[in-house]
């Protein structure tokens, strides 16, 4: 395994073009060993393409990628022997059981028989699949199938786990369970690279995140540090028309974000604003949400609706 602090993934100037379309543009990426790294971005931002280049299935049009210090373009097999990938879609043989699906993936990794069976048993426990180990996959719920997909990508005990949208479409309990497993892996010194567009997932799970938009890296860092650096501490959410917004915030330097009729205002302390709102609205005050600024705010600010006012 890579010593902590060294880069598991090191990408420099990576660009990928599909004809005239540029999927990834001049991307630099450093994923230190032993961290959980989140690649965030809206749909079509180039996240999956970036992952495919990292595990060496797609070649960059320009730039270079090293994983475990190995040039991926030169020896993709050596890289893939040491990392595991969970694709966005679950790819399993529906007629077979989780146990058999795991065995098949163990064969793809050329594990010898004794190790194969041992790993299958370990992973049935690790991802809590044992109760359904011999049920055909077609009869399993989405949560079980997703856990099986992750178990399959862990079959060879990889140093780096790559998860492409691991929890899309799962219920909250399954999501929590999967996050716990990811933390556990990281605790054992494994590195994790994941893509997601759930910002709560990124904020809770990732030590570092990189926001990708239209193939370009917009910002990178630890989630809390990024939020502190880019946004005020508190956020206030209300329903307000643009006219009300103009009246309410006239002359104020606060950052704000509009999405339809919903307005979010950022300030280090939103107390005075709440008071002003109450005064204006009189008796039937509109519902107000005051919360800490979070990664979702940063994501929206960085990728979607543009921030107005302030810095």
């Amino acid at each position, binding site marked *: 395994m890579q010593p902590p602090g060294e880069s598991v993934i090191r990408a420099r100037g990576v660009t990928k073009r*599909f004809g005239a379309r540029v999927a990834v543009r001049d991307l630099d990426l450093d994923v230190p060993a032993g961290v959980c790294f989140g690649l965030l971005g809206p749909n079509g931002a180039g996240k999956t393409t970036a992952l495919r280049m990292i*595990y060496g*299935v*797609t*070649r960059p049009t320009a730039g270079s990628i090293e994983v475990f210090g190995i040039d991926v373009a030169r020896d*993709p*097999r*050596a890289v*893939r*022997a040491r990392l*595991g*990938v969970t*694709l966005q*879609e679950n*790819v399993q*043989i529906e*007629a*077979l059981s989780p146990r*058999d699906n795991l*065995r*098949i*993936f163990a*064969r*793809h*990794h*050329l594990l010898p028989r004794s190790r194969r069976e041992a790993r299958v048993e370990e992973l049935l426990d690790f991802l809590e699949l044992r109760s359904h180990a011999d049920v055909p996959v077609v009869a399993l719920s989405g949560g079980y199938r997703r856990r099986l997909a992750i178990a*399959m*990508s862990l079959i*060879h005990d990889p140093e780096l786990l790559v998860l492409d949208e691991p929890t899309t479409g799962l219920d909250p309990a399954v999501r929590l369970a999967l996050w716990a497993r990811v933390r556990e892996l990281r605790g054992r010194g494994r590195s994790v690279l994941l893509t997601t567009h759930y910002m709560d997932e990124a904020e809770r799970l990732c030590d570092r995140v990189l926001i990708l938009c239209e193939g370009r890296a917009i910002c990178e860092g630890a989630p809390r540090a990024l939020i502190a650096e880019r946004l005020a501490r508190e956020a206030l959410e209300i329903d307000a028309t643009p006219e009300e917004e103009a009246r309410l915030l006239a002359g104020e330097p606060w950052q704000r974000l509009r999405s339809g009729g919903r307005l979010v205002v950022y300030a280090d302390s939103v107390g005075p604003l709440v008071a002003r709102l109450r005064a204006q609205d009189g008796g039937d005050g509109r519902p107000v949400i005051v919360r800490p600024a979070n990664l979702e705010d940063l994501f929206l600010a960085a990728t979607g609706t543009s921030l107005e006012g302030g810095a």
Partner: protein
Amino acid sequence: MSISLPHALSVWWRNASMYRRTWKANILPNFFEPVFYLAAIGVGVGAYIQQMGGTSYARFLAPGLICVAAMNGASFEVTYNVFVRLTWEKTYDAMLTAPIEPDDVLFGEVLWALTRSGIYGGAFFLVVAAFGYAPLPRALLALPAIPLAGLLFAALGIAFSLRATKIDFLSFYFTLFLTPLFLFSDVFFPIQERLSGPWLVVAEVLPLLHPVRAARATFNGTLGWQTLWDVVYVLVVSAALLALARRTIRRRLTA
């Protein structure tokens, strides 16, 4: 990138473990189909035919039908099954997250198609032998014609389905390509005896003709230079198609 045999075998093994679950239901038709053909056409129609190619009609038909069975076994595997794994089930995308390269996938699939052709063709051979239409032990020499036909139609089918953009195209492959081959490739009658001039050369292009002619030559004990040509044809055409398929599968999986 070179082929890794262990990885290709893991692809073969994946298909085999899926098949193992259903083989009991699958293998039975493999025995019945030849019985129906031999009974209806070999014995039924054959009753009105004094002889063909120097033997009884059922004996003429038997080696050809063995090759057709091998052709079908390979063809179903590399058309519908490969297409579904490639486009809908994303099986190959998942394989390529392991240290498996597109060449290994191609090689593993062709090996598996050969296995299926062996199961189909082998079952047919047993039935033919049980009916007494296979002159033993001479007819055992026809067994290599089964993997030859399997290889040829694995290569043809996979080269085609890797380029198919819609599953509908696969039915063209069956109705416009395999069905005419089945009818005109010496299985039911010696086509070249009905042709003359340049058409003789055109008929020589028919892929199924070659394994059928080779199998029949062993049944009749008439192995010769033509048999060698038939084997060379199968190997050269298969190699060319697989070279093409290598380029296509790499393009489709690594774009």
